[in-house]
């Protein structure tokens, strides 16, 4: 399981570009930069919609002021769903980058995948937020299943 001091895996994620889905190498986004990454079980799910994502929209300017170059939200959804969720939630307008991990390869590589068949979730991500400097994790806030407490934008901001 991903911990402080670990290097992020060199995963390939997807985002919606002007000409359709395009690949994003996580290492390209994190090398020589200070980046916040937060992950959640799924777009349009109640806690993610009402609490987790909005907490980073609220705190985006404070992260900017503390030298964070980019805030990235990762979820095991497809790039179409992520695009619409970003638009409808206001995350895209707030400057938050939404990256899709559709085959869960990144989420499994960091050891944070889980299943909840009762709600139709397979290989989804546990809820966490981290700070990475030059690709190395310097703070890791992993929430217990079912909670959205220490991985919020406000809680992670206290690390900076």
């Amino acid at each position: 399981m991903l911990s402080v001091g670990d290097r992020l895996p060199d995963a390939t994620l997807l985002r919606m570009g002007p000409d359709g889905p395009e690949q994003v190498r996580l290492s390209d986004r994190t090398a020589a930069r200070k980046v916040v990454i937060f992950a959640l079980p799924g777009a349009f799910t109640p806690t993610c919609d009402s609490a987790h994502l909005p907490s980073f929209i609220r705190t985006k300017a404070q992260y900017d002021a503390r030298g964070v170059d980019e805030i990235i939200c990762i979820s095991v959804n497809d790039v179409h769903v992520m695009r619409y969720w970003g638009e409808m939630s206001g995350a895209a307008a707030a400057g938050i980058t939404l990256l899709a991990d559709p085959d869960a390869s990144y989420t499994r590589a960091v050891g944070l995948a889980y299943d909840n068949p009762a709600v139709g979730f397979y290989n989804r991500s546990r809820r966490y937020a981290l700070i990475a400097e030059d690709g190395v994790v310097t703070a890791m806030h992993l929430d217990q299943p079912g909670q959205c407490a220490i991985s919020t934008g406000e809680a992670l901001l206290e690390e900076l």
Partner: protein
Amino acid sequence: MSLTVGNRFPGASLVRMGEDGPETVDLAGYVAGRKVVLFALPGAYTGPCSTVHMPSFVRTAEAFRGKGVDEIICVAVNDPFVLKAWGEATGAAAAGITLLGDAEGKLTHALGMGFSAPHLGLIGRSNRYAVVLEDGVIAHANVDKPGECNISKGEELLAAL
């Protein structure tokens, strides 16, 4: 298992958003003793699904009911949260179309309708088809070629009734 007229449609455990959150639907029991239209597509919020396929059933929902169809069901390899949001965004929910998630893709796989397009981020999704089921048995089947959205549209299936 193929989508051939006269075959029994396979049973499956699907998920939908209920009043109190996600709930499981046993498809075989759900369609038993009824006349049901079921159509499947690659995914909520993807281009042709949002702009062509789903709207064709929103347009024709009343006409299907006029021909004795009890329910119109859309199946996609998505979770119930995404399907609920998409059902509201497309007008499908308002048109009375039921959205069921084949979240793990088991039904799609059993039908041999699965495909993956990793560069588009679509893994284990469903090709397009539309069927009429009478007491769980396939009475009409309009199966599109992969990548196409022609004969599985609402108007095309309606013409078969």
